[in-house]
């Protein structure tokens, strides 16, 4: 057995008793505060109840060809289980923290490689094309999914209006960001403003929806009011919320989640059960409101419409 000889101490090395005792008090303080925070915070999270109301206006819509015949998710679920990191990273945060988000006046600037760059007011956007109700499947990269009756029209309606030039290859989107209205954002680990992008042919695809409402009404703040994208064959984070800028350009734009973890979130982010997220399988998903998992479909079940956009591409490499 090894017996270590105690090293001799010089007086200067001895910690004064007051400091020594203080250290104890300090540790004691930290301990009690820590334990209390852990227990208190946990219990209050367990007891918190989500709010159920939001201000909204009814929207008149026409029938759409782009709709699936599946059971629609509960509106309360879709409005109280959100990923909108600007308002906090917990699912219930956006519903709570976005209630005073100011969405009027609102303009969307369309610029870049287009013949007639211009700003659109929300009113202009609402009247630019007939509003359709489209029931889409929506699949989050976190393996939950919903079926939502969105309201809007194909993004190509507005893009055709501004006329992309010959150099146009990609479309970059940018969300609104105001740290004053979104004080929770800075703690969520993402860079803001949130940015997303599509290839031009993806953006021109009729399924790519410029969305202004859901469940018969204007969008609730937590779901991306007043105007957002919905791209049903891609993971949810591609469907950027609260858009203020759309820029048509010749180069591939950076996208928020890709910048954070390029190996986990690709530029394309097409729903694909055969390409796993590095940390979890993407083969299955859970519909909100259900217990067990479903099989995930390639392109979220929109293969017939969109697979041709990617013919010849290695979907694993360009995930």
């Amino acid at each position, binding site marked *: 057995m090894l017996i270590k000889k105690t090293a001799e101490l010089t007086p200067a090395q001895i910690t004064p008793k007051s400091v020594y005792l203080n250290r104890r008090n300090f540790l004691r303080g930290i301990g009690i505060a820590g334990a209390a925070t852990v227990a208190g915070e946990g219990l209050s999270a367990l007891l918190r109840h989500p709010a159920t109301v939001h201000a909204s206006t009814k929207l008149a819509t026409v029938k759409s060809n782009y709709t699936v015949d599946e059971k629609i998710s509960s509106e309360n679920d879709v409005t109280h289980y959100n990923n909108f990191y600007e308002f906090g990273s917990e699912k219930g945060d956006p519903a709570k923290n976005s209630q005073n988000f100011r969405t009027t006046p609102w303009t969307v600037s369309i610029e870049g490689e287009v013949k007639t760059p211009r700003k659109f007011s929300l009113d202009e956007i609402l009247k630019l094309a007939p509003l359709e109700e489209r029931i889409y499947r929506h699949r989050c990269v976190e393996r939950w999914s919903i079926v939502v009756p969105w309201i809007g029209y194909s993004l190509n309606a507005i893009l055709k209006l501004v006329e992309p030039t010959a150099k146009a290859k990609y479309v970059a989107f940018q969300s609104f960001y105001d740290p004053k209205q979104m004080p929770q954002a800075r703690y969520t680990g993402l860079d803001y403003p949130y940015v997303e992008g599509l290839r031009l042919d993806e953006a021109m695809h009729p399924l790519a929806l410029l969305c202004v409402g859901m469940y018969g009404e204007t969008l609730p703040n937590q779901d991306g009011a007043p105007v957002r994208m919905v791209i049903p064959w891609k993971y949810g984070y591609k469907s950027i919320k609260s858009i203020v800028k759309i820029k048509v350009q010749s180069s591939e734009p950076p996208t928020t989640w890709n910048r954070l973890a390029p190996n986990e979130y690709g530029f394309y982010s097409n729903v694909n059960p055969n390409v796993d997220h590095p940390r979890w399988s993407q083969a299955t998903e859970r519909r909100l409101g259900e217990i*067990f998992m479903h099989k995930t479909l390639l392109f979220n079940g929109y293969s017939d419409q969109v697979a041709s956009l990617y013919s010849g591409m290695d979907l694993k490499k360009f995930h």
Partner: protein
Amino acid sequence: MRLLLRKFMARELAKALVFLLSSVPFLILVWRSFRGDLTANPVEFFQHQTGDWTLRFLIFTLCITPFRKLLLLPELIRFRRMLGLFAFFYVCLHFLTYLGPDQSFNVAGMLKDVGKRPFITVGFAAFVLLIPMAITSTAGWIRRLGGKRWQALHRSIYVCAILGVIHYYWLVKADVRKPLFYGFLVGILLIWRLLNWLSKRSQPAVSEVRPVETS
């Protein structure tokens, strides 16, 4: 004041109280599931809550030894086994939500997932490590193993706590505040032990307080 507290903690009533308090998160979950009030994604909510409470109870268990010494409350030892077993109770629920709703009770599929996903691997390892500790938590097992060996086995809780924090850290997508907070607490509790061990090596142990009589 401290003496009163110590006398109270020595009573069976104190144990009952700690048991009741430790059950509160579970009772709230049960109550909320009866009301159909487990958010839009009940499985995920149940899974995250039970995961959180597992880590919290591991931390509470690790607090016992330093708190006994720093707060001069040796009677806290009476709650350590119960807190540890509650950590095990919550991790069992956590694991069941994974095996059942996530993996449809397909054990082979689950084991494949465990092997393939690092965050699941570490979480599962922590769960497995907790099992022998839960089994040998009785007085009979302490006797059978002998104090020294029993203590050595139960030191694996340090590893469980670290693995638990890593499991959580690797799971989150961007907002790492909560796993870091747990990691910070576990870090302090383990560093305290390290310092304590180092100082014990260089000086003979002196008992600071005598235990009060237990009733």
